[in-house]
């Protein structure tokens, strides 16, 4: 990407996918009469959109979807590195754990931790990891062995596809302190204002773990009605969403008669 101007055949979404050309120079990306200076990009993300692998670029609160085909990864890396952000040189390990289990092939990378209004990024030549700020869970310091030495690192958790992912950041301690405060402030703005009861916390934990509603009721010893009320509260607080409404049925007299028949048949066998 060291050339002054690069041209790529692309497809962009404008009511449907349309073929065109994108031009990337040192400061901006242009396509179909739209010019997006890198400094104006609010957010950037690899997405699957209307049947295509594309890059979502947000500018002036409007999303543009462009599919770069074979050069997509290269362009994405270039745009990510040119995002307007607060940028800190760090070593990072991301993901370190996924769903509570260590990611064995993950390695420390030298690069940047970048913070934009909408996301936190881990950037290196091989990785461009975007973590949406509303998916951040916690940030804290911890001691880890890095390069055979005990070092203080920042442990950042976030949620991706319903799983908690942890990432580690290593940098000078003063920067670490500042980063922790910075990220903690972001997390606090997304935290629910009301405190959860113990039961509500337990329900959240169980739903995360994958326990179904029947399991939740059985573990907590509560009725479906009680659980529904608690679910409603979690949904109202923005901590959960309804994906399925469970049906409860009781048998009609015909159903009961049929069960009797089934039992009789079983007894004869």
């Amino acid at each position, binding site marked *: 990407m060291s050339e002054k101007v690069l041209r790529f055949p692309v497809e962009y979404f404008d009511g449907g996918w349309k073929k065109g050309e994108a031009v990337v120079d040192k400061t901006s990306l242009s396509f179909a009469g739209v010019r997006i200076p890198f400094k104006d990009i609010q957010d950037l993300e690899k997405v699957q959109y209307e049947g295509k692998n594309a890059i979502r670029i947000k500018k002036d609160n409007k999303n543009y979807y462009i599919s770069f085909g074979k050069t997509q990864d290269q362009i994405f890396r270039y745009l990510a590195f040119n995002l307007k952000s607060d940028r800190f040189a760090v070593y990072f390990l991301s993901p370190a*754990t*996924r*769903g*509570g*289990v*260590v990611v064995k092939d993950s390695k420390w990378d030298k690069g940047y931790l970048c913070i934009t209004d909408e996301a936190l990024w881990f950037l290196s030549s091989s990785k461009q990891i975007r973590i949406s700020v509303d998916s951040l869970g*916690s940030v*804290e310091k*911890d*001691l*880890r*062995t890095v390069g055979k030495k005990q070092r203080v690192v920042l*442990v950042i*958790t976030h949620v991706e596809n*319903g*799983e*908690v992912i*942890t990432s580690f950041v290593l940098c000078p301690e003063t920067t670490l302190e500042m980063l922790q405060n910075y990220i903690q402030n972001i997390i606090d703005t997304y935290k629910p204002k009301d405190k959860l009861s113990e039961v509500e916390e*337990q329900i959240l*934990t*169980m739903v*995360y*773990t*994958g*326990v179904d509603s029947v*399991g939740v009721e*059985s*573990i907590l010893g509560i009725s479906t009605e009680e659980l529904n009320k608690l679910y409603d509260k979690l949904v109202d607080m923005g901590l959960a969403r309804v994906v399925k409404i469970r049906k409860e049925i009781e048998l009609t007299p015909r159903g009961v008669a049929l069960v009797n028949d089934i039992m009789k048949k079983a007894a004869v066998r």
Partner: protein
Amino acid sequence: MPKVLIVDDTAFMRKLLRNILFSGGFDIVGEAENGKQAVELYKQLKPDVVTMDIVMPEMNGIEALKEIKKMDPQAKVVMCTAVGQEQMVKTAIKLGAKGYIVKPFQAPKVIEELKKVAGMS
């Protein structure tokens, strides 16, 4: 069906693990709420795998692991840790723990890890 002993000081976590492991095809032979009970139950039940919480009253998970390993060097113990307990996990691994899971965990991952440790995968 591998026999599992669940060790955790919170009743909720024990119930949760019981639910997950039962659905994963494990036979939950016992539950202990501290390290001391875990050692006693291990002696009696000889489980194939133990899930061991680290921070517990009376005797913590590390001490319990040591005792169990003294009794049975082949014991398969999986530590259950929270984020920020890496040092303890390292100690546990040195002492012979076969693996660890980090809370909050997801059922499929827990089952996968325990099956691996139990030699089922």
